[in-house]
């Protein structure tokens, strides 16, 4: 079983400033979530509030981009949550956000340490996974292959690729919660 030599594709595309701002929100969201995996209550509160806001959306819009809308809502909630935590008034400053996009570490400096522990977390999440799950994850996340490319590379079906990925994610999630 030989893997064909293929040039690795970059996993992430160069993002525009606007989407960088979005990524920043997103990073805040997922840092929050990963950190809060251990604190079930916070994640639940966030989800509950996000759910209510999501039900208020216009249905047609929501169905077209459900994922983006959910992320937007949840990110906003996290942003509000953080500002409230620091007893800051809730002010949305687009300029500050753009600056943050240029230099993500500044306004959210405390995220650097969160980020570091998150990297260690990734390592520990992976250790318990079966080798093929890890192979599929690496081909997707590091090498940026599509599902059908992964299927061809590993000589398995696309269905199986998706299944392994989903299991890997579900198991990683439990690993984070238990650690």
């Amino acid at each position, binding site marked *: *079983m030989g893997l064909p030599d293929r040039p690795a594709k970059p996993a992430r595309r160069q993002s525009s400033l606007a989407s960088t701002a979005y990524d920043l929100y997103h990073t805040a969201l997922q840092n929050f979530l990963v950190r809060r995996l251990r604190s079930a209550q916070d994640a639940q509160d966030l989800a509950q509030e996000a759910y209510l806001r999501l039900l208020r959306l216009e249905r047609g819009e*929501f169905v077209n981009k*459900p994922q983006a809308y959910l992320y937007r809502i949840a990110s906003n909630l996290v942003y509000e949550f953080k500002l409230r935590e620091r007893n800051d008034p809730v002010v949305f400053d687009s300029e500050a956000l753009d600056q943050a996009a240029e230099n993500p570490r500044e306004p959210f400096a405390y995220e650097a340490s969160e980020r570091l522990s*998150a990297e260690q977390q990734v390592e520990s999440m992976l250790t318990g996974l079966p080798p093929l799950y890890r*192979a599929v994850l*690496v081909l997707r996340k*590091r090498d940026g292959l599509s599902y059908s490319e992964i299927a061809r590379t590993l000589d398995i079906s696309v269905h199986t690729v998706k299944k392994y990925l989903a299991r890997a994610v579900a198991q990683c*999630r439990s*690993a984070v919660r238990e650690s």
Partner: protein
Amino acid sequence: MSAARRETHPLAEEAAQWVVELEEPTPRVLREFAAWLEASPRHVEEFLLASAVWKELDGLDAARRIDVQRLVEEARSNVRPLVPEAMREISDESSGPSRARRRVLGIVAAAAALVAGIAIWLVMATAPDVYATSRGEQRAFRLADGSVVHLNTQSRVEVEFTRMERSIRLLEGEALFNVEHDPARPFRVIAGPTVIEAIGTRFNVYRTDAGTTVSVVEGIVEISPTIPPALSARAAPPPRSDAQPQVRPVSVVAERVAAGEQARVSLEGEIVKEAVPDLARVVAWRERRLVFRGDPLEDVVREFNRYNELQIRLEGDALRARRLTGVFDADDPMSLLQFLTRDGTLIVDETGGDEIVIRER
């Protein structure tokens, strides 16, 4: 591993599936996903957590230290049981000059495998290689001649290639063989007292307590119900021409089974040949699909139990004999339970931890 798998919550798995689907979404996926989100705040929560984990994995192995090829080899060849199995095998063999050498080589090989892993093992191996899967696991591996073996859940094979023959023992479970054509070296699968010989073909062998079922997808195989002793002594397998057994086995009626046919071989050596109604069904297990067409519930439950830690037990003969038709995900016994209980005539007792008992109301 199974322990970790058991602890993942069904909703967490569902959420993870959505995260994966949404990477390459279709309008239908988006629609169904929106409906799923709107169904419950729990769904929202699980999806957010799963997507956080997914995003977290973006930074996976930025230093590019992980060798995918190695992971694949690790998955395709089961290193774990290899060494102990091989050692047991060696100590079981009676000694002789050539065997003594084999034994030393085998032990050296085993030690080397312990230290340096499978690569060295493959180079030095003279004792058979053992490949195994645990409950719920499947793997495929390519043999030295290019043939491919797909191993189903809870299965074990022992592979031994010599100049004269390619011999594979199915010690337990089920395997699908894709055989490379090599007229000089017959390809033999030995399942208990049954020998299946193939030349360039594709066939599935399923061994249970009651016997062995051989289903041929392509080509022709020849089945002999009893192993000629010359074959079972594997240190010096005779060339095909003098493969005449020294002690004539009780029954040596060899049966030829062609593509589209299957043969059930009982432990007593009786062979019953029949047409396979649906060949796709025979190999559906590779996709972890369980396909039933009017099968007794007893067989259905046995199939599910092969794949899952969660064991289902049926109480009552009438229940066991009920017929069922359906296609299921082998990893999802709960879907079977849902299917069975939908008409309200059955009671499901889940108090037994890893065992679920079903009885009629």
